[in-house]
């Protein structure tokens, strides 16, 4: 990788970290496609490398959010154990999963994230902004939330993402948790889940040092900056832009799953 490519990778991961912190998506949904499509990194190495970025962005984002005290510790505990178990188990089997299947599942994951962003665009303006919460009824439906978070953990372990695209809508729409609380809680859970998933990739030698170092550093800075700026950023234009990005990435990942010789 040339110096220019490393700088571009760092810039892209800075944006991915910032977007992840601002929109509650997590950076993994951008970083894995970035590595596989642009740098032609084998998908399992891309997933392992992305998990290191997720660790860094979660830590940086949670430090930025600590002063708000929005994360719900009980939700972190009960939902986190589900994601950790799912992530640890799926990461163990991930290297044996066909790369085409991983691409296909990733395409579904980015498609889901796209749909969730579009739903936020169509929601009333106040609901799309990450500002002070509406008064929630939650948390309710804890059992459903725990079950869904097992799925989020499995996605994390297989795909190298943090699980936020599953965790946040589950908390806000099924468990009736206020959106800012869900974002902050998910930020903590994502780091814990990524740590559990990272272990298996680390043991299997699937984390690229030459990519993880610049990508994790840049995404951590981006996440910290994004976390601090989030309440002041215009969310709707950001969401619109990243819906377009995700539509493109979804198409590319699904193509890699089905195209002959891809």
């Amino acid at each position: 990788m040339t110096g220019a490519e490393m700088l571009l990778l760092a810039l892209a991961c800075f944006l991915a970290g910032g977007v992840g912190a601002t929109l509650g998506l997590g950076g993994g949904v951008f970083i894995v496609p970035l590595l596989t499509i642009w740098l032609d990194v084998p998908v399992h190495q891309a997933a392992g490398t992305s998990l290191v970025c997720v660790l860094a962005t979660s830590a940086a984002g949670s430090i930025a959010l600590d002063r708000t005290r929005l994360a719900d510790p009980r939700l972190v505990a009960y939902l986190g154990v589900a994601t950790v178990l799912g992530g640890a188990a799926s990461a163990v089997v991930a290297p044996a999963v066909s790369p085409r299947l991983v691409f296909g599942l990733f395409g579904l994951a980015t498609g889901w994230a796209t749909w969730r962003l579009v739903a936020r665009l169509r929601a009333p303006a106040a609901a799309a902004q990450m500002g002070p919460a509406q008064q929630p009824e939650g948390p309710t439906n804890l059992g459903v939330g725990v079950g869904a978070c097992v799925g989020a953990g499995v996605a994390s372990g297989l795909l190298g993402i943090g699980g936020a695209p599953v965790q946040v809508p589950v908390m806000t729409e099924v468990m009736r948790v206020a959106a800012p609380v869900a974002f902050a809680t998910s930020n903590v859970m994502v780091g814990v889940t990524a740590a559990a998933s990272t272990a298996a990739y680390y043991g299997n030698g699937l984390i690229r040092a030459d990519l993880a170092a610049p990508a994790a550093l840049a995404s951590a800075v981006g996440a910290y900056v994004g976390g601090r700026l989030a309440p002041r950023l215009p969310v709707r234009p950001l969401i619109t832009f990243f819906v377009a990005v995700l539509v493109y990435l979804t198409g590319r990942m699904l193509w890699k799953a089905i195209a002959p010789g891809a």
Partner: protein
Amino acid sequence: MEGDRAGRLTTHAVTAALLLGSLCLVAGLLRGLPPGAVVARPGELLRADGPALVGLGVLLLVLAPIARLVGLGAGFWQAGQRGPLAATATMLVVLALSFVAASAREW
């Protein structure tokens, strides 16, 4: 007040893990990372070359969520909340076992 203090300590611990991990990543970059190199595993960390420094950085980054969980657990312990405390302890055990298993692969 105790909760505030515990929260601040947790933030400091997470910050320290992130900063130390980041320093190791920077050191690894400066040391040089061959194209395609994977991070060094526990038995190779003493080499102190680029991949070893990045490997150490990864392990330090993993300490950040672990520090967060320890802080949460301490809060649940003080508040006498057994359910969340058990869940937090379970997560810590799973994390520890995962890394022990990962490290044992090379032997």
